[in-house]
């Protein structure tokens, strides 16, 4: 296990839209002015110091020999083959060079590798090939060791991919923070100290009334043990069972593509990247009904008012499968709903912040439609997790293991990372406790961009309201009245009595 010392990872930012689509896999460079302070130096040492971290033992030796810029400064007199190999382009940042290359097709990229060693390194940047695969092979792909190989073997099947041995191609004196960091984040492991804190409330065998009063009503997360012990899924769901059950005719949603389960496992077994794709399908029970029968909604969450819309309800349940390292960076669930997440296999690390506390390193736009946050989950941990230790506004954290269910109240920020290959079921729901919230959210003028999971965004509010009135006449008025009385009687404090940041994304109550 090798250790490396690093001062501070550059914070690369990505921006995501509220409906969970990433804008582009690029760096906005908001912290550009900090670049000079954050030179990374790599010194290989034996011990794991406090700032050190561990690289996966299976990591390939640094791809092509890219070194961080800090090393260049330690080597006076050395030239950077990155610059000489780019010629006039060297004045552009790494991200801009990659942005340009991102507009080329596979063939052009292949040709450009011969231009110079620098071009070789840049054109081999895996995320570029990943985008090419995901943009073009939307009906699924067979992962072949790397995104580039996957692309080439799909488009040039007669070309013998194995004849090329890319690992033997090393470049000397190539220094680039962005490319080095990209490799680094793809190969880092979670540090044990990031997994130590577990301060969530755990309950086993409580009544529905107690759950509602102690957690749902007051919008507090809780980890529920023992409430899915009867699920067939817990007993049955392993790879063999699932592959056999789903067969080769069903395709599941994996990011922007749909693929067979068998092909997904092929990818997740081989992949090593910053943000591994995970399988996340809202129609899994429609595609394979037996999957829907192998589990049932835990008793605490059975009041789900979007039910009244029947088939027209927004997406509400997902199966999630992903390898270690896959997960979701900080976000708030759509439509102001609450959620539960049950782990069937594997384990997940959760970090949660209440609605009025924006996690460090996260920047939502004023209307909440976009959220900018670090590129990878590991990067967030490296740059920002430490800040939460001494903060008054400490997050709620836990590791959720197989058989456990976490309740994520509406409006709460959360980050999840799979610590090992995991399978989970998650559902979003609306109960009477947050019905008014949801109606308010759907009524918003920018509902069409914020509301997700349905094709009929603008009318959802009216449809939902009318359907509720039809099934539960007077319910909305009753709840509204109760709310008014509550407001008059209590002054609502935020969870830690904190002052909201300027531009904070606040759910109104």
């Amino acid at each position, binding site marked *: 296990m090798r250790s490396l010392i690093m001062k501070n990872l550059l914070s690369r930012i990505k921006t995501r839209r509220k409906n969970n689509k990433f804008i582009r896999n690029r760096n*906005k*460079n908001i912290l550009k002015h900090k670049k000079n302070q954050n030179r990374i130096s790599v010194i290989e040492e034996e011990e794991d110091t406090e700032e050190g971290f561990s690289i996966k033992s299976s990591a390939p030796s640094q791809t092509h020999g890219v070194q961080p810029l800090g090393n260049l400064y330690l080597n006076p007199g050395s030239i950077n*083959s990155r610059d*000489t*190999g*780019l*010629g*006039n*382009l060297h*004045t*552009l*940042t790494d991200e*801009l060079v990659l*942005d*340009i*290359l*991102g*507009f*080329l*097709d*596979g*063939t*052009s*990229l*292949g*040709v*450009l*590798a*011969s*231009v*110079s*060693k*620098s*071009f*070789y390194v840049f054109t081999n940047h895996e995320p570029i090939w990943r985008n090419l695969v995901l943009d073009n092979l939307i009906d699924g792909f067979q992962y072949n060791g790397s995104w580039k190989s996957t692309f*080439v073997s799909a*488009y*040039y099947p007669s*070309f013998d991919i194995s*004849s*090329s041995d*890319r690992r033997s*191609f090393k470049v000397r004196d190539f220094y680039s923070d962005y490319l080095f960091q990209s490799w680094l984040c793809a190969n880092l492991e979670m540090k044990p100290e990031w997994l130590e804190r577990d301060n969530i409330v755990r309950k086993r065998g409580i009544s529905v009334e107690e759950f509602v009063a102690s957690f749902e009503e007051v919008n507090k997360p809780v980890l529920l043990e023992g409430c899915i012990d009867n699920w067939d899924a817990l007993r049955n769901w392993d790879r063999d069972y699932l592959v056999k059950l789903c067969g080769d005719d069903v395709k599941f949603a994996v990011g922007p593509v749909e693929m067979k389960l068998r092909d997904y496992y092929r990818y997740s077994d081989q992949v090593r990247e910053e943000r591994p794709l995970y399988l996340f399908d809202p129609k899994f029970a429609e595609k394979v009904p037996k999957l829907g029968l192998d589990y049932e909604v835990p008793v605490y969450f059975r009041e789900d008012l979007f039910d009244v819309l029947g088939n027209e309800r927004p997406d509400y349940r997902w199966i999630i499968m992903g390898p270690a390292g896959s997960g979701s960076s900080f976000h708030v669930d759509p439509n102001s709903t609450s959620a539960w997440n049950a782990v069937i296999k594997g384990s997940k690390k959760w970090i949660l912040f209440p609605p009025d506390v924006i996690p460090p390193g996260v920047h939502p736009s004023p209307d909440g439609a976009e959220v900018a946050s670090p590129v990878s989950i590991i990067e967030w941990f490296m740059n920002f997790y430490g800040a939460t230790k001494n903060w008054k506004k400490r997050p709620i954290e836990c590791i959720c293991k197989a058989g456990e269910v976490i309740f994520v109240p509406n409006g709460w920020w959360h980050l999840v990372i799979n610590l090992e290959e995991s399978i989970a079921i998650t559902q979003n729901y609306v109960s009477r406790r947050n019905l008014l919230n949801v109606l308010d959210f759907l009524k918003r003028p920018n509902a069409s961009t914020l509301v997700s999971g349905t094709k009929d965004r603008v009318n959802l509010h009216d449809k939902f309201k009318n359907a509720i009135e039809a099934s539960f006449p007077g319910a909305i008025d009753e709840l509204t009245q109760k709310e008014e009385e509550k407001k008059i009687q209590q002054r609502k404090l935020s969870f830690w009595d904190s002052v909201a940041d300027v531009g904070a994304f606040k759910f109104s109550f």
Partner: protein
Amino acid sequence: MAEEKSQASSSKMLTLKASDGVLFEVELNIAKEMKTVQAYIDDCEDIETIPIPNVLGKHLAIVIEYIKKTNEEYDAEFEKQWNMDDLQLLLLAANYLNISGLQECLCKAIAKRIENKSPEYVRKVFNIENDHSPEEEAKLRKEYKWAFEGVDKD
């Protein structure tokens, strides 16, 4: 159809000062398209002249014109007027000023100029000295045999 940015929303004018001292008076809503400038305004409300130290007057003029006139048609013709050096400098300007539409337009433009070209051509365009050894280059041609069919003659 040319789309001029609406002038109704704000008549407040701002002065931008390029690196070579050239001054540009622009409407607030034009300046706001440059997110870097927007951030500057957010931080210091009463500012009248904003320094843009990284961009020459000649390029700032082009950028401002782009913001005023951008649409699909304009963008398609826009990039044709500039040589590679200008494209790069404009890209650096767009990146610094954080104008995503222009940045994307320019990246696409540069990409278009090296698409389907031979390595020799690309080296000439950017003044690059080939640092692959002959053996390495032969190895690469083999590794990338699939890519080399259908490249432009130049």
